[in-house]
């Protein structure tokens, strides 16, 4: 019943439909194709600029693969339907932008609490509210982290190009499945609508993972336990006779509700946190350029990492010892590496298309004697190489 991306029949179809080679495509299309390669066979969403091409591509392609595309009545329903489909064993995705991401927060929390794998693409656009609907931004950095209520961990991945988006969405699915957790994919309106070269690989080059399933009755009866010590419980699927009970209320290892025993809540929520903390190797990822001898460090992410790299290259030609650090998994933030790098430099610049969000994470890991400065731009227009270069020269 489950349509898995690694079945021979599906691999044959993928090869037939998406020939390896170079394509000129939109970032949004790259996300959609990446998701199909990752094994996503269920999509539920609600149209919103600048994410709609992801829905449109999935609506066109999923039926060819025997998969499911549903346009729901709103974003609340979209993520709900995804969670339902995830419990029958499907890899699931939705894509939205700020206003829809806000509506999804309720059930994103439900997915965290019920440890439901899913990938939620937020194509960031200029807010607050409807803001500049068609313009890109990076203003949802902390919404991804803290948008839903209560103590919770979250994993968020942010790519820097169309090509990168293709591979990073696959990585996002692998993380979601490995850790039985929702993963937020922080894309943005600029990369989403930029057409550039995207190389589609052969299916064999794509490594995909599926969630752990219970190996015996005992594991199946503890869908929220930790039988392997890695914090990740195997996930019994609906329809297998296990009588699995799933609730967003506090529950015991067997899934049954217990909201009155403090220890039960403590154990559950701490294990969900530990699951993410102790599996850093599964998701931690960053890029570094010229950090070996850098005296000035630029820290940037997503779309802004590109002009940031341009500026660093130019500054290097001018003889300025500047490096670039780009977290690719932005939550949890790669703090340890940031701390090491921060010790070696005298200034850190953080360019981003918001009024200063990732910089607050950076601040947690660099000492007070390091000059820390944001390079911020809003209004829907990306930062330029010149603008960032000027700031680098300013602290050189």
């Amino acid at each position, binding site marked *: 019943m*489950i349509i898995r991306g690694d079945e021979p029949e599906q691999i044959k179809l993928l090869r037939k439909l998406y020939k390896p080679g170079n394509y000129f495509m939109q970032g949004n299309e790259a996300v959609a194709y990446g998701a199909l390669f990752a094994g996503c066979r269920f999509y539920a969403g609600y149209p919103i600029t600048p994410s709609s091409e992801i829905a449109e591509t999935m609506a066109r392609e999923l039926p060819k693969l025997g998969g499911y595309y549903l346009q729901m009545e709103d974003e609340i329903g979209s993520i*709900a339907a995804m969670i339902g489909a995830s419990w029958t064993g499907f890899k699931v995705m939705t894509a939205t932008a700020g206003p829809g991401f806000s509506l999804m927060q309720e059930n994103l929390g439900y997915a965290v609490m019920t440890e439901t794998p899913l990938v939620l693409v937020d194509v960031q656009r200029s807010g607050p509210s409807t803001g500049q609907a068609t313009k890109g931004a990076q203003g949802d950095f902390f919404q991804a982290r803290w948008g839903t209520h209560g103590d919770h961990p979250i994993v968020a991945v942010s790519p820097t190009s169309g090509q990168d988006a293709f591979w990073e969405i696959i990585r996002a699915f692998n993380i979601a499945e490995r850790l039985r957790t929702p993963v937020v994919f922080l894309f943005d309106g600029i990369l989403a609508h930029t057409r550039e070269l995207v190389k589609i690989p052969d299916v064999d080059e794509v490594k995909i993972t599926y969630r752990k399933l219970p190996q015996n009755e005992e594991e199946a009866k503890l869908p929220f336990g930790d039988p392997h010590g890695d914090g990740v419980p195997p996930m019994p699927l609906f329809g297998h006779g296990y009588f*699995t009970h799933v609730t967003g209320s506090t529950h015991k290892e067997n899934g049954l509700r217990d909201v009155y025993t403090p220890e039960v809540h403590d154990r559950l929520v701490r294990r969900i946190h530990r699951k993410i903390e102790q599996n850093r190797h599964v998701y931690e990822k960053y890029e570094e350029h010229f950090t070996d001898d850098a005296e000035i460090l630029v820290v940037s992410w997503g779309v802004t990492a590109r002009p940031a790299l341009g500026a660093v290259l130019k500054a290097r030609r001018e003889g300025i010892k500047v490096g670039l650090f780009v977290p690719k998994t932005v939550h949890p933030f790669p703090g340890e590496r940031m701390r090491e790098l921060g010790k070696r430099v005298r200034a850190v610049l953080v360019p981003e298309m918001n009024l200063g969000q990732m910089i607050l994470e950076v601040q947690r890991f660099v000492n007070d004697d390091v000059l820390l400065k944001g390079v911020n731009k809003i209004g829907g227009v990306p930062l330029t190489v010149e603008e960032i270069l000027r700031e680098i020269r300013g602290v050189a």
Partner: protein
Amino acid sequence: MMYLKSAYEIRDKYLRKDMLPTIFCPGCGIGSVLQFTLRAIDDLGLNQDEIVWVSGIGCSSRVPGFVNFDGLHTTHGRALAFATGIKLTNPNLKIIAFMGDGDTAAIGGNHFIHAIRRNLDVTVILINNFTYGMTGGQVAPTTLKGLRGTTAPYGQFENPFDIAGLAVAAGANYVARWTVFNYLQGINSIKKALSKEGFTLVEFLSPCPVSFGRRNRMKTAPELIRWYQKITVPLAKAKKMPPEELEGKIVIGEFVDRDRPGLVREYQEYIKRAKRMMGWEQ
């Protein structure tokens, strides 16, 4: 014959012993409706492994936690949206959504009408107690004009929703409404609902003496049932009554029984159409 199995037998087969007793107050109607539903399942001989119970939040929504089935206890009002993903991706599973009136018609109103519009293959068992039971008796979108709740202490001034009527208008395949007093009709309706394709709904007027009755001079379940008998009119009789006489009454019975294709079938047809249009299939 078929309904003579003892309640103990039903209980032992279908309830999670470690979750008992239930949270329901003395006189609450939810337990009765749960029993009707389990008897209907038992009578139809449905496979316990192939039924998933979904719910939102509320007293009524706690039911999936008490039964030996797969269950998804979700967020307030959203059960049907969750159900859509389950049913579509595993059509072998039968979905029972146990919902409250506030859950269904207030916060979940949009999911409700759209699930019906899609003709999602699901059976909704609706507990209409005219109130927000779980949160202590605030008025609901079903509270009849003049009745009291903690948030309308001087009597409800808004118009109520007729949820069964809404479901008929939105296109459901099967819609019936009974009170918990209509034991046989209720079980028969649930059986019918469970046997059909597409969206089916059985609504029950269900006593909530604690949050609702108490505030409306009906402190006990028998008082509430007597009140139901006063305000309900069987459909056949209602058809012959002039509209003025029906004012303030609630019609009970089977409102619609039709066979429009359900979402699962429609989607499967859609996939076939896609393959034909791709030239892959004739």
